[in-house]
């Protein structure tokens, strides 16, 4: 079989050999017809690939749906989102495959470095690939594959991202891929160390469906902790309550948040050994678990996911972690901050999720959905103030009056800061 390089592809002996080896091991339509094979090179990331047709029965034996970003790292997890095998779209796909539909543009990487008997690592079209495998007894058609060769981690991540861009893949999946490629497994290890994730557990690919910490939440926790820490170093104790604090949500999706990247470049090696950060993480996890159990097991409060996971709402998590950082140099208040808010017969959960959800200040729009429900600057300022005010006492209950006063303080300070006094 003749192998050619497309005119925009830089000739590479190594790639030519890999492609040649691929055709020796994998029977394709092109092989069978002895048509020339063209090697393309991506103009953006310089990765090499070919386009070819493989029979369903052959493909089904060698495709690997558990592709990993770090091929050589045994701790690297499956990177793709979970398969949605009960989704109506998938069921239709499966039916079509059984009826002989040919699929195209399934994105794979030819890689024998792990799981060597399944060298076609699927990066795009995992549902189509799965449907094909499931239908081999009904139909054995040729399907179109785009096969990449000799990818490095960066190229691999980008292939994964571009292959999934049009498929409604969650930002949590993108975050998970980019995190591993850019910073390795530090963040995951930190979450495992704290207990946010089990010892061999990875971040969820769709945060909204899980009840676990996501990459975005973990990044936000760390960024806010260090932001608060820096801010706290500049503020005297008596000035703590005269400021509005601005927690920060890390960007999510196809790019790495700049503040998080800055922190990771400075502190990546310290995060796993920073005792204060670890203590903050553990205390926050304790709050989350207490809230979760209080809602789950109590008939006095509706067992809603939003209530159970109130601590994991982004504005709550950011506000809490910012204040944890802020108070590192104010030990007595830090210890109060770490105390779980008291519950009462009328307030069965420490974060008083129902009351927070019903909360509305006069300055809010009629459509405002309550405290700790949105990812807005206003909501995060308010939550930071709630936790800051709570740190004034070790016997605090987040009741209605307490929440009102905390939000009043933010609104009052915001107006004062405009400088018309």
């Amino acid at each position: 079989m003749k192998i050619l390089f497309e005119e925009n592809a830089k000739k590479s002996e190594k790639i030519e050999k890999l492609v040649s080896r691929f055709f020796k091991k994998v029977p394709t339509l092109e092989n069978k017809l002895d048509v020339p094979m063209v090697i393309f090179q991506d103009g953006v990331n310089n990765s090499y690939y070919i386009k070819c047709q493989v029979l369903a029965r052959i493909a089904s034996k060698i495709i690997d749906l558990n592709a990993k970003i770090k091929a050589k790292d045994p701790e690297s997890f499956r990177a793709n989102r979970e398969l949605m095998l009960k989704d109506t779209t998938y069921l239709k796909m499966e039916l079509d495959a059984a009826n002989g539909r040919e699929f195209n543009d399934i994105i794979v990487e030819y890689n024998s470095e792990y799981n060597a008997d399944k060298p076609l690592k699927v990066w795009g079209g995992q549902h189509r690939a799965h449907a094909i495998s499931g239908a081999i007894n009904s139909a054995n058609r040729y399907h179109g594959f785009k096969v990449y060769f000799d990818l490095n981690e960066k190229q691999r991540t980008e292939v994964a991202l571009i292959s999934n861009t049009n498929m409604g893949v969650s930002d949590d999946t993108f975050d998970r891929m980019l995190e591993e490629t850019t910073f390795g497994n530090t963040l995951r290890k930190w979450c495992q160390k704290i207990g946010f994730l089990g010892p061999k557990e990875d971040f969820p690919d769709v945060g909204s469906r899980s009840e676990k910490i996501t990459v975005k939440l973990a990044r936000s926790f760390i960024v806010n902790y260090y932001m608060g820490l820096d801010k706290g170093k500049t503020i005297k104790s008596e000035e703590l309550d005269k400021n509005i604090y601005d927690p920060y949500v890390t960007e999510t999706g196809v790019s790495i948040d700049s503040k998080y990247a800055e922190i990771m470049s400075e502190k990546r090696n310290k995060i796993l050994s920073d005792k204060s950060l670890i203590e903050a993480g553990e205390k926050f996890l304790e709050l989350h678990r207490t809230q979760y159990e209080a809602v789950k097991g109590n008939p006095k409060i509706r067992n809603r996911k939003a209530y159970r996971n109130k601590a994991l709402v982004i504005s709550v998590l950011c506000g809490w972690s910012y204040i944890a950082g802020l108070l590192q140099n104010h030990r007595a208040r830090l210890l109060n901050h770490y105390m779980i808010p008291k519950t009462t017969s009328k307030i069965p959960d420490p974060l008083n999720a129902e009351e927070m959800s019903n909360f509305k200040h006069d300055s809010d729009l009629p459509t405002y959905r309550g405290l700790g429900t949105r990812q807005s600057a206003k909501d995060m300022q308010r939550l930071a103030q709630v936790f800051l005010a709570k740190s004034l006492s070790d016997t605090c209950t987040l009741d209605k009056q307490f929440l009102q006063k905390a939000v009043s303080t933010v609104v009052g300070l915001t107006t004062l800061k405009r400088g018309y006094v």
Partner: protein
Amino acid sequence: MLNYRDYLSYSEKYIQLAEEESLDKLKFLIPSILLSWIAIESFINNIMDDFGSLPEDLFELHERGLLLEKKVIFVDHGGEMGKFKLDYREYKRLGEKILFLIAKFSNLNKPYKGESLWQNFEDLRDTRNKILHPRRNIELELTVEKAYKYLETSKNIIQFVSTNVWRKKISF
């Protein structure tokens, strides 16, 4: 807990009931007017509370007295002798609270008491006083049109304070 939007909505509802009533409209117009006034009270008191909840040293004592509706007294005995402090509850007039908020927190530096907005506010206040302090020689002349005007005045005063203090328009 009710807020100014609730009171405004109740006020409007009562006016609509008055419109539907052919004989005794007063039984609906009176609560409507009171509710229009209460809406302003609720809104202004809550803003006062926002500032009243701030650390004490951000305001002068007499300002805190107004914010918290407490009397400033001179202490002539005990450990705080010779100092001023806030003591018992002393209710402040709604109009004075508005004047304070505008003067303290907005950059509006022209007199506005002569403008129609304030004149209408005073008209609403007088009518409210007549309702709350009835006498046989005071005749209440209430109409649906007047009640609508007071409702509008209530909204306008709330909007006036919001745009000047918070610098944002609110939606009703």
